[in-house]
């Protein structure tokens, strides 16, 4: 009965709806583009300044395009920051790797081998995420000097690994919650033990989890400044600290500074592009019923 009554109304509605939707999409995209442009302004400024000659850099002309492309800034920055870039790699790669592995093992235990009090321990881990860096800085320095690890990269790796445990554990525990328990049980019956199941069943299914955690940890550790400046001597400075000290005492070579900042930002972008491919969907497909 209602269908014939509605039928005459249908054509005008069918005409109006797509037009309205199209207008809505346009407005939405305009707003998003405006935000994107606003967000990218500093990067744009960094890029054009990094390509300018020293003489071209001043406040009045900061938005002007460079008169030519001067890559000398980049080679100058690289010459000064090269060792520190290497320090950052030596810091961020092992620290991200070790904390990801520890987080993965923690997550495995806390999601697949629950024991009495395991949920409490998990909550206690999470609590670690909410302790501000600044509040533990002094005891941290004292502790590291007591175990003779202050000043070098290994000490900084240790700090980042420990500070990374809560977040990596959280991400992996939640990721493993999506791995069916029956896979672990099938492994137990097939004859695998605690580590056998981890190595043969859980780890091969963890690729997306590792991609997320490695990107997160690498970016955070690479960009971190406070621990680095407090805990390392100049020879072991990672690039963030060195970049800050690139500025001379009398004048700041903004063009070289900006080129250096770009160089320092590149590796995190690279990691994101490389690891982003491993955000695989459907890795678990086929484990359970059709």
């Amino acid at each position: 009965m209602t269908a014939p009554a509605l039928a005459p109304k249908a054509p005008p509605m069918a005409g109006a709806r797509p037009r309205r939707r199209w207008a809505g999409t346009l407005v939405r995209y305009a707003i998003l583009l405006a935000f994107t442009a606003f967000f990218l302004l500093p990067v744009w400024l960094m890029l054009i300044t990094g390509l300018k000659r020293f003489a071209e850099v001043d406040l009045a002309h900061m938005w002007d395009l460079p008169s030519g492309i001067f890559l000398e800034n980049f080679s100058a920055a690289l010459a000064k920051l090269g060792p520190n870039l290497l320090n950052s790699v030596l810091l961020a790669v092992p620290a991200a790797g070790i904390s990801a592995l520890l987080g993965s093992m923690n997550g495995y235990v806390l999601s697949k081998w629950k024991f009495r009090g395991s949920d409490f321990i998990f909550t206690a881990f999470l609590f670690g995420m909410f302790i501000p860096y600044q509040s533990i800085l002094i005891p941290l320095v004292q502790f590291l000097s007591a175990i003779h690890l202050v000043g070098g990269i290994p000490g900084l790796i240790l700090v980042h690994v420990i500070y990374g445990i809560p977040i990596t554990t959280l991400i992996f525990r939640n990721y493993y919650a999506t791995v069916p328990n029956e896979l672990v049980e099938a492994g137990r019956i097939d004859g695998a033990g605690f580590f056998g199941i981890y190595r043969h069943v859980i780890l091969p299914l963890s690729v997306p989890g590792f991609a997320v955690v490695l990107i997160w940890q690498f970016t955070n550790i690479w960009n971190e400044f406070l621990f680095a400046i407090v805990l390392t001597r100049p020879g072991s400075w990672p690039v963030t600290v060195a970049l800050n000290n690139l500025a001379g005492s009398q004048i700041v070579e903004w063009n070289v500074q900006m080129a250096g900042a770009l160089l320092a930002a590149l590796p995190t972008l690279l990691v994101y592009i490389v690891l982003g491919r491993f955000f695989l969907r459907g890795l678990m497909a086929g484990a359970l019923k059709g």
Partner: protein
Amino acid sequence: MATVTFDHVTKRYPGNVTAVNDLSLEVADGEFLVLVGPSGCGKTTALRCLAGLEAIDGGRLLIGDRVVNDVAPKDRDIAMVFQSYALYPHMTVYDNLAFGLKLRKMSKADIEARVQVAADTLGLEKLLHRKPKALSGGQRQRVALGRAIVREPKVFLMDEPLSNLDAKLRVQTRAEILRLHRRLKTTIMYVTHDQVEAMTMGDRIAVMRDGLLHQIGTPQELYMRPANLFVAGFIGSPAMNFVTARTSPDGLLFGSTRLALRGAWRDAAASVPDGSEVTLGFRPEHLEVASEVPDAAITIPASVDVVEFLGNEELIHAQAEGQEIIALVSSDRKVQAGDQVDFALAMERLYLFDPTSGLSLVR
């Protein structure tokens, strides 16, 4: 191959839930035992206890002569087929089958030979290099079976292995598992909630409810001599009719209908005080629409509500003394809604139950 013994096994979950309550049963060597019951009855928990995936809180579990209470799952010499199949998604079919053998440090040649045999048996030869996600539901199910049989264990544990298949494939796979059992002669403990599956597959069936074992016996025994109301109602499709009657000095009073009993039935009715309620049970397929009632039978007058034509047979929904009953009769009887009919029931097809305890009164 081995026997399986549950000796007063109890399993409790936190929150004082008793999932398996004092379960005692024995599975003979090479027997196909089906654990059946409604969901939450403890059948899967019992199976998981035997697998070693759950620790038991009381009693003993034996595989063969060995007490396995504290033996790790991998050392119990069992294989399990999971309801969800639980195939390793990152491994090929070959590796799924070979995984357990590799962990047992078997030689490569032996592994390959065993996987080949299992693949031949289950028709998986062409799928060995595929991953589970490239398989259909039925194929995954067979891989799950294959993973169990390559191990050549003493006991197979199967947890509702057919419940995720469509109806046609289920019937097919049912036969396949039975063929497999006949060939391998391995003890199988099989869990299902489907009484048809239980009846068609089991050498014996154990019926559970609320963690308790209600009856164990062959399909025929459970069908012909159910021990209590629950088993009587659970086994058989359509389900048994239950109506209420009272005992009287010369038999039973079912509403205004007097039912004359003989032999063991009369003794059973006489064993409870006159005037007490008893539950009568009779299966729909044992009722007959009779114009002439033979001597050996009792008569139940009823008025027909609905007739459902099923082809060869029809289901008659009727009211007898104000209580609803169902009869399954051959479809040439031409019974129609509104008819008054007399149903004849052979005396040995009548069950009497104590309505409070649920126990069968005729023994």
